[in-house]
């Protein structure tokens, strides 16, 4: 389990609890009603158990008094000072058994129903969150750490589980029990009830004091725990360096400092946590003792007891014993236990609401805007050079452009003509990343982008596939404003190989087929061959059926890159974007891959971002970027002749970082 993050104590949005309960109600009305009824019934049963116990005592008393055998005969008994009813032991036990059965069935019904509701609700919630997340713009993922997003699905969902299945019904149940107890206690004695309430107050104060202290210490503990974990992580990651420098002793000493600090903080935090329950439980015991003693004093002094039925003088032993002492002690005990439980739930409720609030934040994020209506279709050429739309996969495409004004549809052949017209761009509205950038990519041309990290190369490609949006008409694809093209279709038309390779859990085959889900096995092999990945895949333990896990951690960086190239090859998109696609492959292997890459790029408009300049020498156009501006453009020969920035990079005079 990941450590509780400190920031989780951040204030949740108002109305979160209401929203959570509302959405729960919306999805599971029937189940919730059933649970509520069952819950209330089971509490009533719990409370009435005590009444029955005293009733049975009365029956015995009465039967001895009246000289009857309560096993076979009915006797009249007084029910809670309210009414007189006839009863005998077998009936009473039978009724009691029946009530218990109902109670058990009820509590089974609600725990089971709520458990099922919780799981179903969490499932709905998870799916909704995930599905919503898929639609969020890339910007969301730039501005939120992966770890923070993950913790929504793990920690936060778990706090919601706790809240829905435990805290909500328990608070309801304990709350109702407390009210019920209070009513019964008041009906017995107002004085004693006041004593109990004073004890309750003490419990709440204790909870707040120690609980408050505890949470402060827990935050301190959490901080030093993350320090220790950070220290462990750093030394383990750098363990080989530690060994090479025989630095074991020093790093051990450093570790000891943080480790000791953690021990100190953990001790204080746990002490506070450990003593909360014993104290609260024993306040209950104190109340019990005081109630007992006070009742006795009342009796000894023949005092007046204020009950719901009015003032009663405690002058006979029987009245004192049967109406005051015995039942009251029982209810006061039940009352304190429930108060103590209730206060325990508060922490979970606070955590649950905070967790739900963060999940709702994700659901409230605005999804990627897509007002595009131009779609990508396959076309079939006729002999005379004209074409028509087809549902077959022909590898020839056109943009289908419906015109709202007159209801007509026009088709534009997909050629791969991409024009970027003088754009400025900033991710955050403050720092300019691109300034006055214009790029003209004619069909079939290879455009190379060169420049240091942060020069804005990847940003340009991010704008072409609309990971980020830019003003209307600044980027045109075959003459069409890309904002008018449906996002999915725009992206289908672009084959992208990213610098950071991400593979998914599944077989090698699955991972390559990710590029085109309906590709046949043969097509997968073919794509692997193009990427020069076929040979190494065949050498894997199960060939194409080898399972990859943990982002393909069982493969080398270079091998992962080859698979990602194969994945793009099978997608067979008409325009390619290669973002440092071969950066992790050594120079000799790269030459082999290059052949396949050339095949991929042949006849297609291609944007290439490369670290090693050797791979882009044949580009039609090379754009050199520096701090968001294009400082040089031309082909390899002309740029070398210019003896500018490109020349310096090429000759290795400047390092590219």
């Amino acid at each position, binding site marked *: 389990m990941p450590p509780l993050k400190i920031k989780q104590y951040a204030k949740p949005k108002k109305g979160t609890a209401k929203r959570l309960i509302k959405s729960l109600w919306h999805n599971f009305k029937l189940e919730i009603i059933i649970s509520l009824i069952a819950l209330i019934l089971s509490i009533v049963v719990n409370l009435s158990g005590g009444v029955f*116990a005293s009733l049975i005592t009365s029956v*015995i*008393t009465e039967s*001895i008094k009246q000289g009857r055998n309560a*096993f076979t005969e009915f006797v009249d008994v007084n029910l809670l000072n309210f009414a007189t009813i006839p009863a005998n*032991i077998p009936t009473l*036990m039978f009724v009691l058994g029946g009530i*218990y059965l109902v109670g058990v*069935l009820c509590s089974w019904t609600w*725990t*089971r129903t709520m*458990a099922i509701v919780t799981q179903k609700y969490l499932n709905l919630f998870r*799916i909704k969150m*995930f*599905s919503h997340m*898929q639609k969020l713009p890339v910007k969301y993922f730039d501005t939120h750490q*992966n770890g923070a*997003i*993950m913790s929504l699905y793990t920690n936060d969902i778990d706090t919601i589980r706790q809240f829905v*299945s435990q805290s909500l019904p328990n608070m309801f149940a304990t709350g109702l029990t407390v009210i019920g107890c209070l009513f019964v206690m008041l009906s017995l004695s107002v004085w004693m009830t006041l004593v109990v309430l004073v004890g309750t107050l003490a419990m709440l104060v204790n909870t707040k004091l120690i609980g408050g202290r505890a949470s402060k210490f827990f935050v301190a503990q959490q901080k030093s725990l993350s320090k220790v974990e950070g220290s462990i*992580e*750093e030394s383990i*990651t750098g*363990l*080989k360096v530690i060994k*090479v*420098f*025989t630095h074991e002793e020093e*790093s051990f000493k450093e*570790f000891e400092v943080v*480790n000791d600090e953690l021990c100190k903080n*953990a001790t204080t935090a746990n*002490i506070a946590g*450990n003593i909360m*329950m*014993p*104290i609260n*439980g024993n306040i209950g*015991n104190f109340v019990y003792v005081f109630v*007992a*003693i006070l009742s006795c004093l009342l*009796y*000894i002094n023949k005092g007046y007891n204020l009950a719901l039925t009015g003032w009663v003088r405690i002058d006979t032993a029987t009245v004192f014993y049967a109406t005051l002492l015995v039942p009251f*002690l029982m209810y006061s005990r039940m009352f304190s236990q429930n108060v103590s439980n209730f206060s325990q739930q508060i922490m979970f409720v606070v955590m649950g609401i905070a967790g739900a609030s963060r999940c709702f934040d994700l659901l409230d994020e605005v999804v990627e805007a897509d007002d595009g209506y131009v779609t990508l279709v396959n076309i079939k050429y006729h002999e005379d050079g004209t074409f028509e739309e087809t549902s077959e996969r022909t590898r020839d495409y056109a943009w289908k452009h419906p015109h709202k004004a007159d209801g007509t549809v026009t088709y534009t052949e997909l050629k791969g003509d991409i024009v970027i017209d003088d754009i400025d761009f900033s991710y955050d509205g403050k720092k300019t990343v691109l300034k006055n950038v214009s790029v003209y990519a004619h069909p079939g041309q290879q455009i190379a982008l060169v420049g240091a990290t942060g020069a804005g190369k990847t940003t340009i490609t991010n704008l072409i*596939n609309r990971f980020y949006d830019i003003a209307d008409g600044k980027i045109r694809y075959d003459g069409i404003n890309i904002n008018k093209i449906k996002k*999915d279709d725009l*992206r289908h038309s*672009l084959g*992208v190989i990213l610098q950071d390779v*991400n593979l*998914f*859990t599944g077989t090698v085959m699955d991972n390559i087929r*990710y590029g085109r889900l309906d590709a046949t096995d043969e097509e997968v092999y073919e794509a692997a061959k193009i990427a020069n990945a076929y040979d190494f895949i065949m050498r894997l333990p199960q060939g194409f059926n080898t399972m990859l896990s943990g982002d393909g951690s069982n493969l*080398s960086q270079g091998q992962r890159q080859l698979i990602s190239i194969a994945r793009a090859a099978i997608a067979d998109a008409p325009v390619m974007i290669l973002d440092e696609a071969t950066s992790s492959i050594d*120079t000799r292997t790269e030459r082999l891959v290059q052949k396949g890459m050339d095949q991929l790029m042949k006849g297609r408009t291609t944007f290439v971002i490369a670290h090693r300049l*050797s791979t882009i*020498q044949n580009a039609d156009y090379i754009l050199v970027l520096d701090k968001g501006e294009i400082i040089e453009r031309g082909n390899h020969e002309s740029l070398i002749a210019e003896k500018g920035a490109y020349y310096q990079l090429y000759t*290795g*005079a400047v*390092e590219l970082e």
Partner: protein
Amino acid sequence: MFEMIKKVFKSVREYKIYAIITPLFMIGEAAVECALPFVMQLFIKEMKPDPAGVLDITFADILPYFIIMLSLTIISIACGILGGRYASYASSGFAKNLRKDLYAKVESFSFENIDHFHASSLVTRMTTDVTNTQNSFAMAIRIVVRAPLMLIFSAIMAFVTGGAIALIFVVAIPVIGLIFFLLARRAMGIFRRVFKRYDALNESVQENVAGMRVVKTFVREDYEDNKFSTASSNLSKDFIKAEKIVALMTPLMNTSIHVVYLLTMFFSTYIILEMAPGTLDANGDPIWGSFAPETMSALLTYGIQILMSIMMISMIVTMLVMSLESIKRIYEVLNEESTIVNPENPIYEIKDGSIIFENVSFKYKKEAERYAVSNLNINIKSGQFIGIIGSTGSGKSSLVNLISRLYDVTEGKVLVAGHDVRDYDLKTLRDSVAVVLQKNYLFSGNVRSNMKWGNKEATDEEIIKALDIAHVDNFPDRLDRVVEQGGANFSGGQKQRLCIARAILKKPKILILDDSTSAVDTKTDRMIRKSLKEDLSEMTKIVIAQRISSIEEADQIIVLDNGEINAIGTHSELLKHNTIYQEVYQSQTQKGGN
């Protein structure tokens, strides 16, 4: 299993006393918790009207009860607080020692041991697994003792108060206990399986988040959606299966309480009415036999306590079993023996920087079929500059790692200054052989603190000299500049140069640069080599490089291919005769680039 637990719990050490005291307080708490209802019952009995229906009590009569009950409560609160206190001393201290022991153990590991466990797994073992063990330890010393004791005390008290009727419990306890245990085991089994799947689901979310650009690039949002929905719904179904069992627990518990209650009530009324029929007193109130309502309520309190402790015990057992997994993972680390240890009579002095490889072969795992490097015969004189070149996976790093015993040879031997490296004291050897690893690492702190890794006593002047040799940029706050974890705030080339400076500060006899200037521009690269040659001429220098320009002026260049030496020679010799070298050279010159 026993040996495993014993070994892990050895780390308790100085906190043993707390681990022993805590259960004692818990016994105190449990005893009071049982004694209190007993005293209360005695008290209520005392308050019972006498046969004449008269109850003549004075304050002096009730005072002893008041004092006893109050002191019991105070004892209970004291035991609770002290127990809670010592339990946290014991558990936090145990965790501290456990982490310390693990840390020390891991630091003694050889590279082979480290590879065996993987860095990420070691981190988990030292963090999450320790926390799990700590929690179950804390629970063990507090509740494991308490729950069975409660069970025993309550049973004893039940017999003392109820006599024969307590036999109901004797019958009920084993039956209920068994049912709970079976249910808990079944539920835990399902849970354990479900949790694994849950982890897998979370992992796939992680993949999705990390690969979001890939998902969007290939327009696979719907596909991912479906995949996730299916997995999540299946998981949900399994969870419901387990939850249904859990939902049975409380009602079952209640049923047992009720059944016991009804039985108790039935038998006690039976005793009162049939076996010891009461008579009336002067007031017309009944005279109770040996069995009174208050006895019954005390008996029930014990009954509930007994059931509660049974439930506790069955839950604890299953939870402890679950934490065994963590204990096992910790034990594996503690029980691992470092594969590289100091010889018995080590040599503490290394005379020069000469290196000889005699028929050396090496593989990473004994069971591996392929050798990483094989049949290596190399003779390096002290002070020479050696270049090593070869494609990825050709064994370049494996070769140099054998010199400072980061790994031990499988066959043959490596000699430094005429002695087998396995005869030297490890610290002496590694202090004399400085390696700048390919996967290098700077530690959080500042430049000075990182440089002192090379030499604790290094003065600022010495550090500056080393930085100059490595051509680390002369930024203004050169020595005090903050270094973030892993050196994340430095560029790749800058980081590499800092690592070289750090190695130079050790004043080693042999300096190994494993692809350590790949991100450095060619001009600076050349200048670093020049400084190394001029300022540190007597040091043996071994350079692994991708770029031919980095090694062309070496005294000897070793061309590795598939773990074997393809050729050894100077740049001009190799250029003439070696095809691999020619190929690499061509790929870098004809088409240019870095």
